[in-house]
């Protein structure tokens, strides 16, 4: 008789897929979100508007709808037949880019304008000022919000099971179908997500403590 416990390694393997979704989504979101935030603060009027529309759209549409829109609609129509994993990472990333742009924008704006003016006075170019003076401070300030984003993407990654990505929840549902026993598999999945949420948050916070500049927050 096969029990749920025999499937435990099978479910656990999903942790790697879930972490892959999270890492991919966070990284792509960072690559999109950081330039967008700089554009929104320092950019031209039209650039600001474009960033605002981007952030508005991706923050106001359910992930479920985005996944279906891109997987069945936009990617095939543009000639890309993507596998579920790649598509999910891209959608998570696009969406996180919208959220991360707002996290970074808030952080950049919380740094006094004097810092930027001082950089320009020292003869730095606009980009040098942003890169050497503003961003090192802004990224540290943005860190707590960014940790939150980890927890949000982690939990949203579970929704990618609708495309059949072999992450924790997809595997859990297969086990439920195979064993006809819903209770234990779902509790195992729940336990894994709780461990990843709190364990991951703790881990990232340790990095934060390491990169902290004493007295930075609260000085501005």
């Amino acid at each position, binding site marked *: 008789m096969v029990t749920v416990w025999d499937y435990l390694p099978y479910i656990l393997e999903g942790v790697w897929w879930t972490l892959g979704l999270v890492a991919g989504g966070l990284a792509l979101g960072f690559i999109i979100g950081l330039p967008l935030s700089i554009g929104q603060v320092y950019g031209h009027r039209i650039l600001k508007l474009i960033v605002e529309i981007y952030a*508005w*759209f991706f*923050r*106001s*549409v*359910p*992930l*479920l*709808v*985005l996944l*279906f*829109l891109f997987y*069945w*609609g*936009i990617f*095939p*129509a543009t000639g890309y037949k993507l596998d579920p994993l790649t598509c999910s990472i891209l959608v998570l990333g696009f969406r996180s880019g919208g959220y991360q742009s707002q996290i970074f924008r808030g952080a950049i704006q919380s740094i006094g304008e004097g810092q930027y003016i001082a950089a320009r006075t020292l003869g730095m170019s606009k980009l040098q000022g942003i890169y050497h003076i503003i961003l090192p401070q802004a990224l540290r300030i943005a860190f707590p919000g960014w940790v939150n984003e980890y927890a949000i993407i*982690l*939990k*949203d*990654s*579970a*929704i990618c*099971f*609708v495309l059949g990505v072999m992450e924790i*929840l997809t595997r859990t*549902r297969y086990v*439920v179908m195979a064993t006809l*026993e*819903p*209770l234990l598999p*779902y*509790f195992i*999945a*729940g336990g894994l*997500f*709780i461990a990843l*949420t*709190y364990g991951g948050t703790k881990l990232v916070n340790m990095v934060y403590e390491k990169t902290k500049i004493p007295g930075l927050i609260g000085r501005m």
Partner: protein
Amino acid sequence: MSFWESFISYLLQGWVATLEILAISIPLSILLGLSLAVARVYGNWLISLIAGGFVALLRGLPLVVTLLIVFFALPKLGIYFSPFWAAVIAFIMCSGAYQSEYVRGAIRSIDVGQSLAAQALGMTKIQEVIYIILPQAFRRALPGITNEIIYLILYSSLAYLVGVQELFSIAKHFNSLQFRPIEIFSTTALIYAFMATIATLFFRKLENKLKIPGLETI
């Protein structure tokens, strides 16, 4: 009937169901958020521990897992809900847990002098919490609560997973008949974005309406 005519009339049915879900879960999630926060701050150690554990659990679980547990796993324990109520209950619990964090932070941020003044006026603890602390804390927590309600509006689409005939599930069904995913899902996306934007504007207005001049400096 043309594609758009039948699509829109279909979608409207789903939209009504989504609005029903939201009409029940938004007010009740706010109520749950307030109750959990009060229980954690003012309850004795046992109540505070239970409320805190509940919040930690619900904030650690993805909403979709909570929803599937409520609908598919709880019947094994003899607890049955219809799809609609399973969705509503999962949404209330999840959103309430997140909202309670903002309210708890807000309660803690109220100056202790307010509490002392209430006691000096002869108020009981319950009167103090209801008439003095919560009206101020709620105002401070409102921006956070608003965020959570926007999330709730978007995540209401998950109700499709347990078979509720709401906006997204109707759109998906219609797509399986017509297979025009770009038109169908982008229209659906815009309806959700419309709801989220209206809610944002409404709550910003509410925030301004409730604002007490000078409260921020206390």
